[in-house]
């Protein structure tokens, strides 16, 4: 809820302040780079500015650079370009990036493409905190089977297909016109730990591997190989629990002007420029952001008069619906879950009593413009307690939806049980009671009325 509110508020604020702004986090973008590097990324930066981002450039060593002022984020997005320097300045320790992300800001990190350049330790630390491993200086990815340019002896510029994902995952990284376009990549690559928060965006081809160019120029054995094949990741995205995004690009050249050319081998335009747009758009929350437009639940007991009530009763029908929309560059549109995926509802007390899919439905009470309503009806379990309607929809590249609504499921009140005469099994007993009652009254009546004939009554009794 807090998350939704915040994103909506951010959206509103940014709409008011800058009508052009389109990122849900905000347009204020910090470029950490030296002037000489800027020339290599002119297209990337101008593309960003064309999409409404306002850029501020600072050298990594800059002393006037500060990410926080009065404990508020100064920038919404940060792009760290590769630097020739050994380390970032004193104002950019690894903890400042963590703090920036904790406050909801996004970070795009471009690692150097050349094996000769080193990675600042602040970035290595940051990577290790989010479960990404960076190779040391001197590593490069090669693919001897499919080099981008056969003339190039090192084979260290490789051709990579646009990312593809299983059918239950939305693909935000092939929005270019040419779906078959190849990407030009040059760099060292990354290895990922097992954290569920980090997802590979672009993986290396099957036969590519990353090896130490200095120590094993002629051949590479297991000791000198950093990672290989699908385990070697070229671009990885981290989404923190508050849905801030940190993207690591293994080789900065992927987004540099020099890659936005024709691929020599195929003589087709490379897909890099479109991919650069996709990566920045995802990182800066122009795509893949879900919004909960409304949650409604109501029960059979009170009907639709009481929506989002706090109390339900055991063994009664309850309907739950949630409206979801998705942000796409400059507007929200109905969120459509991938075909093989389902939004699910959990009805939980310590453990889920139900985990049922929420199909898209049109029967919700309130229809929200630009959103899909997912809805289901189920019967509350025969167990009273404080239950939680939980929609825990966390998917790769989609912002986290974790909505919880605690409601009380109460027991039957004393006057809500079936009355005794409503249970057919009780009829013999009820009949028995009344026979006794009537019989006793009859007996008393008989006894009183037969009083005058005392002798007879006593005579009978004495038997």
């Amino acid at each position: 809820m807090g998350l939704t509110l915040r994103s909506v508020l951010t959206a509103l604020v940014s709409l008011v302040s800058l009508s052009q702004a389109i990122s849900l986090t905000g347009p204020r973008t910090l470029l950490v780079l030296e002037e000489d590097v800027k020339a290599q990324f002119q297209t990337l930066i101008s593309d960003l500015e064309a999409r409404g981002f306002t850029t501020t450039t600072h050298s990594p060593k800059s002393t006037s650079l500060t990410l926080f002022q009065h404990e508020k984020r100064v920038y919404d997005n940060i792009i760290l370009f590769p630097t020739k320097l050994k380390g970032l300045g004193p104002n950019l320790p690894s903890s400042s990036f963590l703090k920036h992300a904790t406050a909801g800001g996004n970070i795009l990190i471009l690692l150097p493409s050349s094996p000769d350049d080193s990675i600042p330790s602040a970035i290595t630390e940051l990577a290790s905190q989010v479960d990404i491993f960076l190779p040391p200086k001197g590593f490069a990815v090669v693919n001897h089977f499919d080099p981008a340019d056969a003339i190039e002896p090192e084979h260290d510029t490789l051709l990579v297909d646009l990312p593809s994902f299983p059918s239950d995952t939305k693909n935000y990284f092939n929005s270019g016109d040419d779906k078959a376009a190849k990407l030009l990549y040059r760099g060292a690559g990354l290895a990922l730990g097992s954290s569920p928060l980090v997802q590979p965006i672009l993986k290396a081809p099957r036969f590519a591997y990353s090896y130490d160019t200095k120590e094993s120029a002629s051949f590479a054995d297991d000791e000198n190989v950093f990672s290989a094949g699908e385990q070697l990741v070229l671009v990885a995205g981290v989404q923190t629990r508050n849905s801030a995004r940190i993207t690591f690009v293994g080789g900065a050249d992927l987004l540099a002007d020099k890659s936005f050319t024709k691929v020599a081998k195929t003589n087709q335009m490379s897909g890099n420029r479109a991919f650069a747009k996709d990566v920045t758009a995802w990182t800066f929350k122009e795509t893949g952001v879900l919004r909960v437009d409304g949650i409604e639940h109501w029960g059979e007991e009170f009907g639709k008069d009481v929506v989002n009530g706090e109390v339900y009763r055991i063994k009664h029908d309850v309907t739950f619906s949630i409206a979801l929309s998705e942000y796409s560059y400059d507007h929200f549109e109905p969120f459509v879950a991938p075909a093989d995926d389902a939004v699910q509802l959990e009805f939980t007390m310590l453990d889920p009593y139900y985990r049922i899919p929420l199909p898209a439905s049109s029967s919700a009470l309130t229809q929200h413009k630009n959103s899909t309503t997912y809805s289901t009806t189920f019967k509350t379990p025969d167990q009273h307690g404080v239950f939680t309607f939980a929609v825990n929809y966390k998917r790769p590249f989609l912002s986290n939806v974790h909505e919880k609504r605690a409601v009380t499921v109460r027991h039957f009140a004393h006057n809500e049980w079936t009355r005794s005469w409503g249970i057919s099994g009780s009829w013999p007993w009820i009949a028995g009671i009344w026979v006794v009652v009537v019989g006793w009254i009859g007996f008393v009546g008989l006894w009183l009325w037969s009083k005058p004939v005392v002798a007879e009554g006593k005579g009978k009794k004495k038997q």
Partner: protein
Amino acid sequence: MSTAKSKLFKDPASTESVRSILRVVILLTIAAAAVASRLFSVIRFESIIHEFDPWFNFRASKYLVKHGFFDFWNWFDDRTWYPLGRVTGGTLYPGLMVTSGAIWHALRMISLPVDIRNICVLLAPGFSGLTAFATYLFTKEMKDSGAGLLAAAFMGIAPGYISRSVAGSYDNEAIAIFLLMFTFYLWIKAAKLGSAMWGGLCALFYFYMVSAWGGYVFITNLIPLHVFVLILMGRYSGRIYVAYSSWYALGTLASMQVPFVGFLPVKTSEHMAALGIFGLIQLVAFVDYLRGQVPSKQFNTLLRALVILITVVAFTGLVTLTVTGVIAPWSGRFYSLWDTGYAKIHIPIIASVSEHQPTAWPSFFFDLNMLIWLFPAGVYLCFRQLRDEHVFIIVYSVMASYFAGVMVRLMLTLTPIVCVTAAITVSSIFDTYLEIDSPEEQDEDSDSKKSKKAKELSGGGFLSSKAPFIGIYSITSKIAVIAAFSVYLVLFVLHCTWVTSNAYSSPSVVLASRMPDGSQHIIDDFREAYYWLRKNTPSDAKIMSWWDYGYQIGGMADRTTLVDNNTWNNTHIATVGKAMASREEVSYDILRKHEVDYVLVIFGGLLGYSGDDINKFLWMVRIAEGVWPAEVQERKFFTARGEYKVDAEATDTMKNSLMYKMSYYKFASLFPPGSAQDRVRGAKLPSEGPVLHTLDEAFTSENWIVRIYKVKDLDQFGRDHFAVSAFEAGKKKGKKTGLAGRAGGKKGRRAVRI
């Protein structure tokens, strides 16, 4: 003493009206004294609800007053036992709340709007006045009104009863003791008169008692026992039959209307005695009737055999039903009445309550003072007369003495009978020694006096009661005895006042201590902390604490609790115990699963407050061990030498437990290095205190008695909290920049992401 006065008048008949006025005045005075002596706490502190359970009763009363009776009946409380909730309306004895609710409505009806809190605070003293009156009526049936007045006075100020009925002690016992005595009075009356009306009244008050206190089982078993003993003594009569049958039939049906009791009277062993005696008395009545009709001796023998046979068959049937599970076996609480070690082994949760411990013998003298040695004398006097109602006193004395010896809190049921028998004793002594006229030396005279008494005693009795009555000749001995007893009585009053003032008038929510200059210093940490919770946490915040504080948090802080003093779910309590006794990694998962926001611990180490959580910790461990023997082990909390230590020698399990960490977190920083001292356990603490990773300190009260911790949220970056602390402390974790992702250096196994 009124007895003494009444004896001064020569002709009792002529002074009847004066004496009844005197009786009323004396009873009113006694009631006033009873109420007044219970007001120490209100005067010293304020009009506040005491201790633990009263806070729930108070909260329930507020709910009743606010929502009305029907909502109260169906009350599902979602703010306790999170997330299970509690069907409160069906699991409490509503008598107390309904009583105060009725008083509240009655006062409003006569345009006296009184705050429900004040009614709750003053309910117990008010009812103690009624208890004194009921005791008067009861004792009057046993001896005479003189003894009755004495018993009322004793009952009014006996510490054994005051301990549960001072102002603010708003517990079920507050009204239950009155109901107990009044039900017994009505029973005696019914048994004496053989009246169905008195039996019906007795059933009515029995119903009230059932609705007010779980101790009603005492009545349920005592009355049948009385009847059984009478039958065994061959004293069966139509009066007993009418009284018992009307009481049992009506009382049982009425008691089943209380939701919490429901079908227990026909399904549990505790109630089987009453049912069995009901069957037996029908048989006996039948046989008695037949015997009247058939004079044959052989036939009588046959009948007797028949009765015995049926009894045996019925008993066997009962045992069979119990074994097959149709009738619930005795509950754990009852087993612990027979075997005091039972609870400690099988149900630590019952044993953990200090009220359920066996009584230490000095507390008999502390709570009853001189009454305790007058008690046997009174029982003896009952044997001398031994009318039907005296049998009741004897049975009551035997049972109550036993139970009071087994469980501290049952001292409460012993107190009334001790007051009654002691009053009979004192009254007899005064009857004998306050006679101004010395007896004539002729035997005829004393014989004639005796013959009067003998007529009264014609109902039966021991030989000793037929011994010739002598009387006291010497004025000196009269004066000596009377003076001695007057001094005893004065001392008794002094003792009662002293005990009430010093031992039973502390609200325990507020602690009082003395400053060096003798002035009173109030330690108000509990309310400070609960108020902090009320003001600084979201209204749906879940607070985890040991169950002792559940009611107080619910009542004072108005926050949701996981467990409370209504210990109905052992597993849930054990879960909290496990969270407290485990390492942080284990505890954090439990806390997350139960959506705990804050954890509250009581820590007395700074002030020397011994009732803190570290001292209760072993019970948490034991209860948790009962459910998860593999994960929590009591042995691991003791040092190799078997000591329970909190200092540097404490075991690792102890030091890593969440409870230890929360209690001593930053405690050492209060002291100069190396001199941290726990005043409760007299232990010197290591200068480096425990480190918490998954909790943040949120609040610590002025004297450190209450400490509240906030449970940290999951890390934004998916790290565990230990890695976060390590990172923040600047220790770079060993994630090498080398061929990372490998388990052991360059040649290690590669971590593969699936």
